[in-house]
Protein backbone atom coordinates (compact mmCIF):
# COMPACT_ATOMS: atom_id res chain seq x y z
CA UNK A 1 0.00 0.00 0.00
CA UNK A 2 1.07 3.53 -0.70
CA UNK A 3 2.30 5.72 2.05
CA UNK A 4 -0.52 7.95 3.25
CA UNK A 5 1.70 11.02 3.34
CA UNK A 6 2.49 10.62 -0.33
CA UNK A 7 0.59 12.77 -2.79
CA UNK A 8 0.98 14.75 -5.97
CA UNK A 9 0.25 18.15 -7.42
CA UNK A 10 -2.23 18.46 -10.28
CA UNK A 11 -1.71 20.47 -13.44
CA UNK A 12 -3.82 23.30 -12.08
CA UNK A 13 -1.86 23.34 -8.86
CA UNK A 14 -4.10 21.46 -6.44
CA UNK A 15 -2.37 19.42 -3.77
CA UNK A 16 -3.65 15.85 -3.79
CA UNK A 17 -3.24 14.00 -0.51
CA UNK A 18 -2.89 10.41 0.61
CA UNK A 19 -4.95 7.38 -0.29
CA UNK A 20 -8.55 7.53 0.90
CA UNK A 21 -9.77 4.32 -0.60
CA UNK A 22 -7.94 1.41 -2.05
CA UNK A 23 -9.45 -1.47 -3.99
CA UNK A 24 -7.24 -4.57 -3.99
CA UNK A 25 -7.70 -7.43 -6.44
CA UNK A 26 -11.47 -7.11 -6.59
CA UNK A 27 -13.35 -9.86 -8.40
CA UNK A 28 -17.12 -9.85 -8.71
CA UNK A 29 -19.21 -12.57 -10.29
CA UNK A 30 -22.92 -12.88 -10.97
CA UNK A 31 -23.47 -16.60 -11.26
CA UNK A 32 -21.08 -17.61 -14.01
CA UNK A 33 -20.61 -14.11 -15.39
CA UNK A 34 -17.52 -12.25 -14.30
CA UNK A 35 -18.37 -8.55 -13.97
CA UNK A 36 -15.07 -7.44 -12.44
CA UNK A 37 -11.87 -9.38 -12.79
CA UNK A 38 -9.01 -8.81 -10.38
CA UNK A 39 -9.00 -5.04 -10.38
CA UNK A 40 -6.90 -2.84 -8.10
CA UNK A 41 -6.71 0.94 -7.90
CA UNK A 42 -6.79 3.73 -5.33
CA UNK A 43 -8.55 7.02 -4.79
CA UNK A 44 -6.60 9.87 -3.20
CA UNK A 45 -7.75 12.67 -1.01
CA UNK A 46 -9.00 15.73 -2.89
CA UNK A 47 -8.83 14.26 -6.36
CA UNK A 48 -11.41 13.69 -9.02
CA UNK A 49 -11.04 10.09 -10.04
CA UNK A 50 -12.89 8.70 -13.01
CA UNK A 51 -13.71 5.16 -13.99
CA UNK A 52 -14.46 4.95 -17.68
CA UNK A 53 -15.08 2.27 -20.21
CA UNK A 54 -17.54 1.20 -22.88
CA UNK A 55 -21.01 0.08 -21.86
CA UNK A 56 -20.93 -3.21 -20.01
CA UNK A 57 -17.33 -2.80 -18.96
CA UNK A 58 -18.20 -3.22 -15.31
CA UNK A 59 -17.96 0.42 -14.20
CA UNK A 60 -21.28 0.49 -12.41
CA UNK A 61 -20.51 -2.80 -10.71
CA UNK A 62 -17.29 -1.27 -9.43
CA UNK A 63 -19.12 1.71 -8.01
CA UNK A 64 -21.62 -0.60 -6.38
CA UNK A 65 -18.76 -2.51 -4.78
CA UNK A 66 -17.33 0.72 -3.35
CA UNK A 67 -20.71 1.78 -1.99
CA UNK A 68 -21.49 -1.64 -0.56
CA UNK A 69 -24.44 -2.45 -2.81
CA UNK A 70 -22.48 -5.44 -4.21
CA UNK A 71 -20.18 -7.70 -2.23
CA UNK A 72 -17.20 -8.96 -4.23
CA UNK A 73 -16.31 -12.63 -4.05
CA UNK A 74 -12.61 -11.87 -3.88
CA UNK A 75 -10.46 -8.91 -2.96
CA UNK A 76 -10.20 -6.35 -0.23
CA UNK A 77 -11.37 -2.79 0.24
CA UNK A 78 -9.31 -0.38 2.35
CA UNK A 79 -10.87 2.83 3.60
CA UNK A 80 -8.55 5.32 5.27
CA UNK A 81 -5.93 2.61 5.50
CA UNK A 82 -8.15 0.13 7.32
CA UNK A 83 -9.49 -3.01 5.79
CA UNK A 84 -13.22 -2.72 5.45
CA UNK A 85 -15.22 -5.69 6.72
CA UNK A 86 -18.28 -6.82 4.80
CA UNK A 87 -20.77 -4.00 5.15
CA UNK A 88 -24.34 -3.14 4.28
CA UNK A 89 -24.85 -0.14 1.98
CA UNK A 90 -26.23 1.95 4.83
CA UNK A 91 -23.17 1.22 6.94
CA UNK A 92 -20.93 2.32 4.09
CA UNK A 93 -22.97 5.51 3.79
CA UNK A 94 -22.50 6.13 7.51
CA UNK A 95 -18.75 5.90 7.04
CA UNK A 96 -18.96 9.04 4.92
CA UNK A 97 -19.37 7.65 1.42
CA UNK A 98 -22.26 9.31 -0.39
CA UNK A 99 -23.45 8.46 -3.84
CA UNK A 100 -25.80 9.25 -6.68
CA UNK A 101 -27.44 6.82 -9.06
CA UNK A 102 -27.41 6.55 -12.81
CA UNK A 103 -31.20 6.29 -12.89
CA UNK A 104 -31.76 8.79 -10.10
CA UNK A 105 -33.06 7.54 -6.77
CA UNK A 106 -34.79 10.45 -5.10
CA UNK A 107 -37.70 10.57 -2.70
CA UNK A 108 -40.25 11.54 -5.31
CA UNK A 109 -43.00 12.38 -2.87
CA UNK A 110 -40.91 14.86 -0.88
CA UNK A 111 -39.91 18.41 -1.62
CA UNK A 112 -36.40 19.26 -2.77
CA UNK A 113 -35.60 20.64 0.67
CA UNK A 114 -36.79 17.48 2.44
CA UNK A 115 -34.79 15.36 0.03
CA UNK A 116 -31.62 17.25 0.71
CA UNK A 117 -32.34 17.19 4.44
CA UNK A 118 -32.46 13.37 4.39
CA UNK A 119 -28.85 13.57 3.27
CA UNK A 120 -28.08 14.79 6.78
CA UNK A 121 -29.82 12.00 8.67
CA UNK A 122 -26.48 10.55 9.67
CA UNK A 123 -25.21 13.88 10.89
CA UNK A 124 -28.06 14.14 13.37
CA UNK A 125 -27.08 12.86 16.74
CA UNK A 126 -30.10 13.27 19.01
CA UNK A 127 -31.86 9.99 19.75
CA UNK A 128 -35.59 9.49 19.63
CA UNK A 129 -36.16 10.26 23.31
CA UNK A 130 -33.72 13.12 23.38
CA UNK A 131 -35.73 14.67 20.57
CA UNK A 132 -38.92 14.30 22.55
CA UNK A 133 -37.50 15.51 25.87
CA UNK A 134 -34.92 18.17 25.01
CA UNK A 135 -36.81 20.03 22.36
CA UNK A 136 -34.44 22.98 22.41
CA UNK A 137 -31.40 20.91 21.64
CA UNK A 138 -33.14 19.07 18.83
CA UNK A 139 -34.29 22.36 17.38
CA UNK A 140 -30.80 23.76 17.49
CA UNK A 141 -29.51 20.70 15.70
CA UNK A 142 -32.24 21.04 13.10
CA UNK A 143 -31.26 24.67 12.53
CA UNK A 144 -27.61 23.77 12.10
CA UNK A 145 -28.49 21.07 9.61
CA UNK A 146 -30.76 23.41 7.75
CA UNK A 147 -27.91 25.90 7.47
CA UNK A 148 -25.63 23.33 5.87
CA UNK A 149 -28.41 22.30 3.52
CA UNK A 150 -29.22 25.89 2.53
CA UNK A 151 -25.57 26.54 1.68
CA UNK A 152 -25.64 23.53 -0.63
CA UNK A 153 -28.95 24.60 -2.18
CA UNK A 154 -27.40 27.99 -2.84
CA UNK A 155 -24.22 26.41 -4.17
CA UNK A 156 -26.07 24.24 -6.67
CA UNK A 157 -28.45 27.06 -7.60
CA UNK A 158 -31.67 25.24 -6.84
CA UNK A 159 -33.22 27.87 -4.55
CA UNK A 160 -36.14 28.36 -6.88
CA UNK A 161 -37.30 24.76 -6.49
CA UNK A 162 -36.67 24.48 -2.75
CA UNK A 163 -40.31 23.73 -1.94
CA UNK A 164 -41.17 21.92 -5.17
CA UNK A 165 -42.02 18.21 -5.00
CA UNK A 166 -39.24 16.30 -6.72
CA UNK A 167 -41.68 14.40 -8.90
CA UNK A 168 -42.48 17.61 -10.75
CA UNK A 169 -38.90 18.42 -11.71
CA UNK A 170 -37.30 17.86 -15.09
CA UNK A 171 -34.54 15.30 -15.41
CA UNK A 172 -31.58 17.66 -15.34
CA UNK A 173 -32.71 19.30 -12.11
CA UNK A 174 -33.39 15.96 -10.47
CA UNK A 175 -29.77 15.04 -11.12
CA UNK A 176 -28.73 18.23 -9.39
CA UNK A 177 -31.00 17.58 -6.40
CA UNK A 178 -29.51 14.12 -6.06
CA UNK A 179 -26.04 15.66 -6.03
CA UNK A 180 -27.23 18.12 -3.38
CA UNK A 181 -28.51 15.31 -1.20
CA UNK A 182 -25.22 13.45 -1.47
CA UNK A 183 -23.30 16.62 -0.64
CA UNK A 184 -25.50 17.33 2.38
CA UNK A 185 -23.86 14.39 4.14
CA UNK A 186 -20.53 16.25 3.88
CA UNK A 187 -19.03 13.04 2.53
CA UNK A 188 -15.40 12.02 2.72
CA UNK A 189 -15.86 10.34 -0.62
CA UNK A 190 -18.50 11.22 -3.20
CA UNK A 191 -19.47 8.62 -5.78
CA UNK A 192 -21.23 9.78 -8.93
CA UNK A 193 -22.79 7.18 -11.20
CA UNK A 194 -22.92 8.66 -14.71
CA UNK A 195 -23.73 12.19 -13.56
CA UNK A 196 -24.05 13.39 -17.15
CA UNK A 197 -26.11 10.54 -18.58
CA UNK A 198 -29.09 11.67 -20.62
CA UNK A 199 -28.19 15.35 -20.52
CA UNK A 200 -27.85 17.80 -23.36
CA UNK A 201 -24.63 19.70 -24.00
CA UNK A 202 -25.60 22.68 -21.89
CA UNK A 203 -26.70 20.58 -18.92
CA UNK A 204 -23.49 18.59 -19.18
CA UNK A 205 -21.45 21.75 -18.99
CA UNK A 206 -23.41 22.92 -15.96
CA UNK A 207 -22.90 19.59 -14.23
CA UNK A 208 -19.16 19.58 -15.02
CA UNK A 209 -18.87 23.03 -13.53
CA UNK A 210 -20.71 21.94 -10.38
CA UNK A 211 -18.49 18.90 -9.97
CA UNK A 212 -15.34 20.98 -10.33
CA UNK A 213 -16.71 23.62 -7.97
CA UNK A 214 -17.66 21.06 -5.34
CA UNK A 215 -14.18 19.64 -5.46
CA UNK A 216 -12.65 23.08 -5.35
CA UNK A 217 -14.91 24.64 -2.72
CA UNK A 218 -15.32 21.76 -0.26
CA UNK A 219 -12.20 19.77 -1.17
CA UNK A 220 -14.43 16.74 -1.64
CA UNK A 221 -12.82 13.59 -2.99
CA UNK A 222 -14.87 12.47 -5.96
CA UNK A 223 -15.02 9.22 -7.87
CA UNK A 224 -17.20 9.18 -10.93
CA UNK A 225 -18.24 6.88 -13.70
CA UNK A 226 -18.90 8.14 -17.16
CA UNK A 227 -18.84 6.71 -20.64
CA UNK A 228 -18.55 10.07 -22.38
CA UNK A 229 -14.76 10.22 -22.80
CA UNK A 230 -14.60 13.91 -23.66
CA UNK A 231 -16.27 15.10 -20.48
CA UNK A 232 -14.24 12.83 -18.25
CA UNK A 233 -10.89 13.78 -19.66
CA UNK A 234 -11.52 17.47 -18.96
CA UNK A 235 -12.82 16.83 -15.51
CA UNK A 236 -10.67 14.26 -13.81
CA UNK A 237 -7.19 14.10 -12.36
CA UNK A 238 -6.71 10.39 -12.83
CA UNK A 239 -8.63 7.83 -14.82
CA UNK A 240 -9.14 4.09 -14.54
CA UNK A 241 -10.16 2.49 -17.82
CA UNK A 242 -12.14 -0.73 -17.75
CA UNK A 243 -13.09 -3.07 -20.53
CA UNK A 244 -14.86 -6.40 -20.20
CA UNK A 245 -14.40 -6.32 -16.43
CA UNK A 246 -10.65 -5.81 -16.63
CA UNK A 247 -8.54 -2.78 -15.96
CA UNK A 248 -6.76 -1.78 -19.15
CA UNK A 249 -5.39 1.59 -18.14
CA UNK A 250 -4.81 3.83 -15.13
CA UNK A 251 -3.24 7.28 -15.01
CA UNK A 252 -3.67 10.93 -15.89
CA UNK A 253 -5.99 11.73 -18.78
CA UNK A 254 -2.98 12.32 -21.03
CA UNK A 255 -1.39 9.01 -20.12
CA UNK A 256 -4.62 7.17 -20.67
CA UNK A 257 -5.30 8.88 -23.96
CA UNK A 258 -2.02 7.62 -25.42
CA UNK A 259 -2.33 4.13 -23.96
CA UNK A 260 -2.55 1.64 -26.85
CA UNK A 261 -4.89 -0.77 -25.04
CA UNK A 262 -7.28 2.05 -24.32
CA UNK A 263 -7.22 3.26 -27.90
CA UNK A 264 -7.90 -0.27 -29.11
CA UNK A 265 -10.74 -0.76 -26.69
CA UNK A 266 -12.38 2.50 -27.65
CA UNK A 267 -11.88 2.06 -31.37
CA UNK A 268 -12.44 -1.65 -31.55
CA UNK A 269 -15.40 -1.92 -29.22
CA UNK A 270 -18.55 -0.16 -30.18
CA UNK A 271 -19.76 2.25 -27.58
CA UNK A 272 -22.29 5.01 -27.59
Amino acid at each position, binding site marked *: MLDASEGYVTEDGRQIGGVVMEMKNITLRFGGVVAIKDISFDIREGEIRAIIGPNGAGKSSMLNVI*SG*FYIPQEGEVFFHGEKRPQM*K*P*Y*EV*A*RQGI*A*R*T*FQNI*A*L*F*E*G*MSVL*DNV*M*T*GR*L*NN*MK*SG*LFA*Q*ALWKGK*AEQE*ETENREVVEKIIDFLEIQHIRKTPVSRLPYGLKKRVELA*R*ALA*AEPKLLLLDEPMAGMNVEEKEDMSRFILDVNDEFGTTIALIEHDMGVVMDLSDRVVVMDYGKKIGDGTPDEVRTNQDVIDAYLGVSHD
Partner: protein
Amino acid sequence: MPDSLLFGTEVVLNGLMAGVLYALVALGFVLIYKASGIFNYAQGVMALFAAMTLYGIMVGQVPFAHLINAIFGTHIHHFGWEVPAIIAIVLTIAVMVLFAWLVQQYIFRHLVGQEPIILFMATIGLAYFLEGVADLMWGSEIKALDVGLPQGGSFWIEENTQWMGMGNENFYGFFLDQLDLIATVIAAVLVIALVAFSQYTKQGRAMRAVADDHQAALSVGINLNFIWVLVWSVAGFVALVAGIVWGSKSGVQFSLSLIALKALPVLMLGGFTSIPGAIVGGLIIGVGEKLFEFAIGPLVGGATENWFAYVLALLFLVFRPQGLFGDKIIERV
Protein backbone atom coordinates in the same frame (compact mmCIF):
# COMPACT_ATOMS: atom_id res chain seq x y z
CA MET B 1 -84.84 23.06 17.68
CA PRO B 2 -87.28 20.48 16.31
CA ASP B 3 -87.01 16.90 17.52
CA SER B 4 -85.64 15.37 14.36
CA LEU B 5 -82.83 17.91 14.19
CA LEU B 6 -81.90 17.32 17.83
CA PHE B 7 -81.84 13.56 17.43
CA GLY B 8 -80.08 13.89 14.11
CA THR B 9 -77.37 15.91 15.84
CA GLU B 10 -77.02 13.28 18.50
CA VAL B 11 -76.71 10.61 15.83
CA VAL B 12 -74.00 12.60 14.10
CA LEU B 13 -72.08 13.02 17.33
CA ASN B 14 -72.26 9.33 18.07
CA GLY B 15 -71.27 8.58 14.52
CA LEU B 16 -68.19 10.76 14.90
CA MET B 17 -67.14 8.77 17.97
CA ALA B 18 -67.55 5.46 16.16
CA GLY B 19 -65.66 6.94 13.24
CA VAL B 20 -62.72 7.76 15.46
CA LEU B 21 -62.39 4.10 16.33
CA TYR B 22 -62.52 3.04 12.69
CA ALA B 23 -59.89 5.64 11.97
CA LEU B 24 -57.65 4.24 14.70
CA VAL B 25 -57.58 0.83 13.13
CA ALA B 26 -57.17 2.21 9.63
CA LEU B 27 -54.17 4.21 10.81
CA GLY B 28 -52.28 1.01 11.61
CA PHE B 29 -52.84 -0.19 8.05
CA VAL B 30 -51.73 3.06 6.50
CA LEU B 31 -48.51 3.20 8.50
CA ILE B 32 -47.29 -0.20 7.40
CA TYR B 33 -48.55 0.14 3.86
CA LYS B 34 -46.78 3.43 3.33
CA ALA B 35 -43.45 2.31 4.70
CA SER B 36 -43.23 -1.16 3.24
CA GLY B 37 -45.96 -1.62 0.67
CA ILE B 38 -47.40 -4.44 2.76
CA PHE B 39 -51.16 -4.61 3.22
CA ASN B 40 -51.24 -5.99 6.72
CA TYR B 41 -54.23 -8.27 7.04
CA ALA B 42 -53.10 -9.08 10.58
CA GLN B 43 -53.69 -5.56 11.87
CA GLY B 44 -57.04 -6.53 13.45
CA VAL B 45 -55.56 -9.64 15.07
CA MET B 46 -52.71 -7.50 16.39
CA ALA B 47 -55.30 -5.35 18.15
CA LEU B 48 -56.88 -8.49 19.62
CA PHE B 49 -53.51 -9.91 20.64
CA ALA B 50 -52.45 -6.62 22.23
CA ALA B 51 -55.70 -6.33 24.20
CA MET B 52 -55.45 -9.98 25.39
CA THR B 53 -51.85 -9.51 26.43
CA LEU B 54 -52.72 -6.36 28.33
CA TYR B 55 -55.56 -8.13 30.09
CA GLY B 56 -53.42 -11.18 30.85
CA ILE B 57 -50.63 -9.08 32.35
CA MET B 58 -53.05 -6.99 34.41
CA VAL B 59 -54.75 -9.96 36.03
CA GLY B 60 -51.51 -11.89 36.43
CA GLN B 61 -52.45 -14.73 34.10
CA VAL B 62 -49.73 -17.29 33.41
CA PRO B 63 -49.03 -17.34 29.68
CA PHE B 64 -49.53 -20.67 27.91
CA ALA B 65 -51.13 -22.02 31.13
CA HIS B 66 -53.21 -24.63 29.29
CA LEU B 67 -50.22 -25.85 27.37
CA ILE B 68 -48.06 -26.08 30.47
CA ASN B 69 -50.79 -27.82 32.43
CA ALA B 70 -51.41 -30.28 29.63
CA ILE B 71 -47.75 -31.21 29.36
CA PHE B 72 -46.74 -31.20 32.98
CA GLY B 73 -50.07 -32.06 34.54
CA THR B 74 -49.93 -28.94 36.67
CA HIS B 75 -52.88 -26.71 37.51
CA ILE B 76 -51.38 -23.25 37.37
CA HIS B 77 -53.44 -20.45 35.90
CA HIS B 78 -52.56 -17.23 37.74
CA PHE B 79 -49.45 -15.89 39.39
CA GLY B 80 -51.62 -14.48 42.10
CA TRP B 81 -50.73 -10.85 41.64
CA GLU B 82 -52.35 -7.99 39.78
CA VAL B 83 -50.44 -5.42 37.78
CA PRO B 84 -51.54 -1.76 37.64
CA ALA B 85 -52.85 -0.76 34.22
CA ILE B 86 -50.13 1.73 33.46
CA ILE B 87 -47.30 -0.76 34.07
CA ALA B 88 -49.19 -3.41 32.16
CA ILE B 89 -49.51 -1.07 29.20
CA VAL B 90 -45.76 -0.41 29.21
CA LEU B 91 -45.10 -4.15 29.35
CA THR B 92 -47.56 -4.76 26.52
CA ILE B 93 -45.80 -2.16 24.41
CA ALA B 94 -42.58 -4.05 25.02
CA VAL B 95 -44.28 -7.25 23.89
CA MET B 96 -45.52 -5.52 20.71
CA VAL B 97 -42.01 -4.25 19.96
CA LEU B 98 -40.66 -7.76 20.42
CA PHE B 99 -43.42 -9.00 18.13
CA ALA B 100 -42.45 -6.39 15.53
CA TRP B 101 -38.83 -7.49 15.68
CA LEU B 102 -39.77 -11.17 15.31
CA VAL B 103 -42.05 -10.47 12.37
CA GLN B 104 -39.34 -8.52 10.59
CA GLN B 105 -36.52 -10.87 11.49
CA TYR B 106 -38.24 -14.12 10.63
CA ILE B 107 -40.76 -13.24 7.97
CA PHE B 108 -40.45 -10.05 6.02
CA ARG B 109 -36.68 -9.76 5.94
CA HIS B 110 -36.75 -12.83 3.75
CA LEU B 111 -39.46 -11.47 1.51
CA VAL B 112 -37.85 -8.18 0.49
CA GLY B 113 -38.55 -7.47 -3.14
CA GLN B 114 -41.38 -10.00 -3.44
CA GLU B 115 -44.68 -9.34 -5.19
CA PRO B 116 -47.29 -7.48 -3.10
CA ILE B 117 -49.63 -10.46 -3.28
CA ILE B 118 -46.97 -12.70 -1.67
CA LEU B 119 -46.52 -10.19 1.14
CA PHE B 120 -50.28 -10.01 1.56
CA MET B 121 -50.53 -13.81 1.78
CA ALA B 122 -47.79 -13.76 4.39
CA THR B 123 -49.82 -11.37 6.53
CA ILE B 124 -52.87 -13.66 6.23
CA GLY B 125 -50.73 -16.49 7.51
CA LEU B 126 -49.42 -14.22 10.22
CA ALA B 127 -52.97 -13.31 11.22
CA TYR B 128 -54.06 -16.92 11.76
CA PHE B 129 -50.83 -17.85 13.46
CA LEU B 130 -51.07 -14.89 15.81
CA GLU B 131 -54.69 -15.67 16.58
CA GLY B 132 -53.71 -19.24 17.54
CA VAL B 133 -50.82 -18.04 19.66
CA ALA B 134 -53.08 -15.53 21.40
CA ASP B 135 -55.61 -18.23 22.29
CA LEU B 136 -52.88 -20.57 23.43
CA MET B 137 -51.23 -17.88 25.53
CA TRP B 138 -54.17 -16.31 27.21
CA GLY B 139 -57.18 -18.59 26.62
CA SER B 140 -60.09 -17.93 24.30
CA GLU B 141 -62.77 -16.83 26.77
CA ILE B 142 -64.23 -13.32 26.60
CA LYS B 143 -62.41 -10.93 28.89
CA ALA B 144 -63.71 -7.69 30.33
CA LEU B 145 -60.88 -5.23 29.98
CA ASP B 146 -60.91 -2.35 32.44
CA VAL B 147 -57.94 -0.05 32.42
CA GLY B 148 -59.85 2.61 34.32
CA LEU B 149 -61.43 4.39 31.38
CA PRO B 150 -64.77 5.92 32.46
CA GLN B 151 -67.86 4.22 31.11
CA GLY B 152 -71.49 5.11 30.66
CA GLY B 153 -73.19 8.29 29.53
CA SER B 154 -71.82 11.66 30.38
CA PHE B 155 -74.29 13.36 32.73
CA TRP B 156 -72.44 16.60 32.51
CA ILE B 157 -73.04 16.83 28.79
CA GLU B 158 -76.62 15.72 29.14
CA GLU B 159 -77.38 18.34 31.75
CA ASN B 160 -75.57 21.13 30.04
CA THR B 161 -77.14 20.59 26.68
CA GLN B 162 -80.72 20.23 27.86
CA TRP B 163 -81.41 23.92 27.25
CA MET B 164 -80.93 23.36 23.55
CA GLY B 165 -84.27 21.58 23.49
CA MET B 166 -85.81 24.95 24.37
CA GLY B 167 -88.52 23.49 26.56
CA ASN B 168 -88.99 20.42 24.41
CA GLU B 169 -90.05 17.78 26.94
CA ASN B 170 -88.79 14.79 25.01
CA PHE B 171 -85.25 16.13 25.00
CA TYR B 172 -83.06 15.42 28.00
CA GLY B 173 -79.83 16.73 26.54
CA PHE B 174 -77.36 14.90 24.29
CA PHE B 175 -76.46 11.39 25.31
CA LEU B 176 -72.75 10.71 24.74
CA ASP B 177 -70.75 7.79 26.09
CA GLN B 178 -67.80 8.90 28.21
CA LEU B 179 -65.68 6.12 26.78
CA ASP B 180 -66.34 7.42 23.28
CA LEU B 181 -65.31 10.88 24.37
CA ILE B 182 -62.08 9.60 25.89
CA ALA B 183 -61.45 7.50 22.78
CA THR B 184 -61.79 10.59 20.66
CA VAL B 185 -59.29 12.46 22.78
CA ILE B 186 -56.87 9.52 22.72
CA ALA B 187 -57.19 9.19 18.97
CA ALA B 188 -56.58 12.89 18.46
CA VAL B 189 -53.49 12.83 20.67
CA LEU B 190 -52.23 9.73 18.89
CA VAL B 191 -52.65 11.27 15.47
CA ILE B 192 -50.90 14.49 16.49
CA ALA B 193 -48.08 12.47 18.02
CA LEU B 194 -47.73 10.36 14.88
CA VAL B 195 -47.66 13.39 12.62
CA ALA B 196 -45.13 15.13 14.85
CA PHE B 197 -43.06 11.96 14.89
CA SER B 198 -43.00 11.55 11.14
CA GLN B 199 -42.42 15.25 10.39
CA TYR B 200 -40.01 16.37 13.04
CA THR B 201 -37.87 13.49 14.22
CA LYS B 202 -34.90 11.93 12.54
CA GLN B 203 -36.56 8.49 12.65
CA GLY B 204 -39.78 9.90 11.26
CA ARG B 205 -37.93 11.48 8.38
CA ALA B 206 -36.14 8.19 7.77
CA MET B 207 -39.50 6.42 7.85
CA ARG B 208 -40.87 8.70 5.16
CA ALA B 209 -37.71 8.21 3.15
CA VAL B 210 -38.03 4.43 3.31
CA ALA B 211 -41.68 4.67 2.34
CA ASP B 212 -40.63 6.62 -0.74
CA ASP B 213 -37.59 4.84 -2.16
CA HIS B 214 -35.62 1.97 -0.65
CA GLN B 215 -32.49 2.37 -2.74
CA ALA B 216 -32.23 6.07 -2.05
CA ALA B 217 -32.86 5.46 1.63
CA LEU B 218 -29.96 3.00 1.74
CA SER B 219 -27.66 5.48 0.05
CA VAL B 220 -28.24 8.12 2.71
CA GLY B 221 -27.39 5.61 5.41
CA ILE B 222 -30.81 4.44 6.58
CA ASN B 223 -30.97 0.94 8.04
CA LEU B 224 -34.07 -0.47 6.36
CA ASN B 225 -34.44 -3.34 8.81
CA PHE B 226 -34.45 -1.00 11.76
CA ILE B 227 -37.03 1.26 10.16
CA TRP B 228 -39.31 -1.68 9.37
CA VAL B 229 -39.11 -2.93 12.95
CA LEU B 230 -39.90 0.62 14.02
CA VAL B 231 -42.89 0.77 11.70
CA TRP B 232 -44.27 -2.56 12.89
CA SER B 233 -43.74 -1.41 16.48
CA VAL B 234 -45.66 1.78 15.86
CA ALA B 235 -48.40 -0.23 14.15
CA GLY B 236 -48.38 -2.53 17.17
CA PHE B 237 -48.75 0.45 19.45
CA VAL B 238 -51.66 1.79 17.42
CA ALA B 239 -53.20 -1.70 17.55
CA LEU B 240 -52.85 -1.68 21.33
CA VAL B 241 -54.66 1.64 21.59
CA ALA B 242 -57.43 0.38 19.35
CA GLY B 243 -57.56 -2.85 21.38
CA ILE B 244 -57.87 -0.97 24.67
CA VAL B 245 -60.69 1.21 23.45
CA TRP B 246 -62.68 -1.55 21.74
CA GLY B 247 -61.90 -4.00 24.51
CA SER B 248 -63.15 -1.58 27.17
CA LYS B 249 -66.29 -1.03 25.18
CA SER B 250 -67.34 -4.53 24.24
CA GLY B 251 -64.93 -6.92 25.90
CA VAL B 252 -61.84 -8.60 24.53
CA GLN B 253 -63.05 -11.33 22.22
CA PHE B 254 -62.44 -12.80 18.81
CA SER B 255 -64.81 -10.35 17.09
CA LEU B 256 -62.28 -7.65 17.89
CA SER B 257 -60.10 -8.94 15.07
CA LEU B 258 -62.96 -8.39 12.65
CA ILE B 259 -62.83 -4.65 13.08
CA ALA B 260 -60.05 -4.92 10.54
CA LEU B 261 -62.75 -5.59 7.99
CA LYS B 262 -64.48 -2.33 8.96
CA ALA B 263 -61.21 -0.54 8.36
CA LEU B 264 -61.18 -1.66 4.72
CA PRO B 265 -63.90 0.68 3.47
CA VAL B 266 -62.28 3.44 5.51
CA LEU B 267 -59.07 2.90 3.59
CA MET B 268 -60.85 2.87 0.28
CA LEU B 269 -62.39 6.21 1.13
CA GLY B 270 -59.30 7.82 2.54
CA GLY B 271 -56.68 6.25 0.35
CA PHE B 272 -54.15 3.67 1.45
CA THR B 273 -51.29 6.09 1.78
CA SER B 274 -52.76 9.03 3.64
CA ILE B 275 -52.83 9.52 7.41
CA PRO B 276 -55.36 12.37 7.22
CA GLY B 277 -57.29 10.22 4.77
CA ALA B 278 -57.61 7.43 7.33
CA ILE B 279 -59.01 9.87 9.86
CA VAL B 280 -61.44 11.65 7.56
CA GLY B 281 -62.45 8.32 6.00
CA GLY B 282 -63.15 6.88 9.44
CA LEU B 283 -65.28 9.85 10.43
CA ILE B 284 -67.25 9.81 7.17
CA ILE B 285 -68.02 6.12 7.51
CA GLY B 286 -68.86 6.47 11.20
CA VAL B 287 -71.24 9.37 10.71
CA GLY B 288 -72.53 8.08 7.39
CA GLU B 289 -73.61 4.69 8.65
CA LYS B 290 -75.26 6.07 11.79
CA LEU B 291 -77.12 8.75 9.85
CA PHE B 292 -78.13 6.32 7.15
CA GLU B 293 -79.48 3.91 9.75
CA PHE B 294 -81.32 6.78 11.47
CA ALA B 295 -82.87 8.18 8.31
CA ILE B 296 -83.23 5.29 5.87
CA GLY B 297 -82.94 2.27 8.19
CA PRO B 298 -86.59 2.23 9.30
CA LEU B 299 -87.70 2.27 5.66
CA VAL B 300 -85.73 -0.81 4.61
CA GLY B 301 -86.04 -2.80 7.76
CA GLY B 302 -82.86 -1.69 9.56
CA ALA B 303 -79.44 -3.32 9.88
CA THR B 304 -78.03 -1.03 7.25
CA GLU B 305 -74.89 -0.56 9.36
CA ASN B 306 -73.71 -3.97 8.19
CA TRP B 307 -73.43 -3.00 4.56
CA PHE B 308 -73.56 0.77 4.25
CA ALA B 309 -69.79 1.23 4.58
CA TYR B 310 -69.02 -1.31 1.86
CA VAL B 311 -71.49 0.16 -0.60
CA LEU B 312 -70.03 3.61 0.01
CA ALA B 313 -66.54 2.23 -0.55
CA LEU B 314 -67.69 0.56 -3.74
CA LEU B 315 -69.01 3.86 -5.05
CA PHE B 316 -65.68 5.46 -4.29
CA LEU B 317 -63.82 2.70 -6.09
CA VAL B 318 -65.86 3.43 -9.18
CA PHE B 319 -65.57 7.21 -9.14
CA ARG B 320 -62.36 8.03 -7.31
CA PRO B 321 -60.17 4.95 -7.08
CA GLN B 322 -57.32 6.77 -5.37
CA GLY B 323 -59.56 7.69 -2.45
CA LEU B 324 -60.04 11.17 -1.03
CA PHE B 325 -56.42 11.85 -0.19
CA GLY B 326 -54.53 9.06 -1.91
CA ASP B 327 -51.77 9.68 -4.40
CA LYS B 328 -53.34 10.53 -7.70
CA ILE B 329 -53.25 7.62 -10.06
CA ILE B 330 -52.02 9.02 -13.32
CA GLU B 331 -51.82 6.77 -16.30
CA ARG B 332 -49.60 7.96 -19.06
CA VAL B 333 -49.91 6.71 -22.58
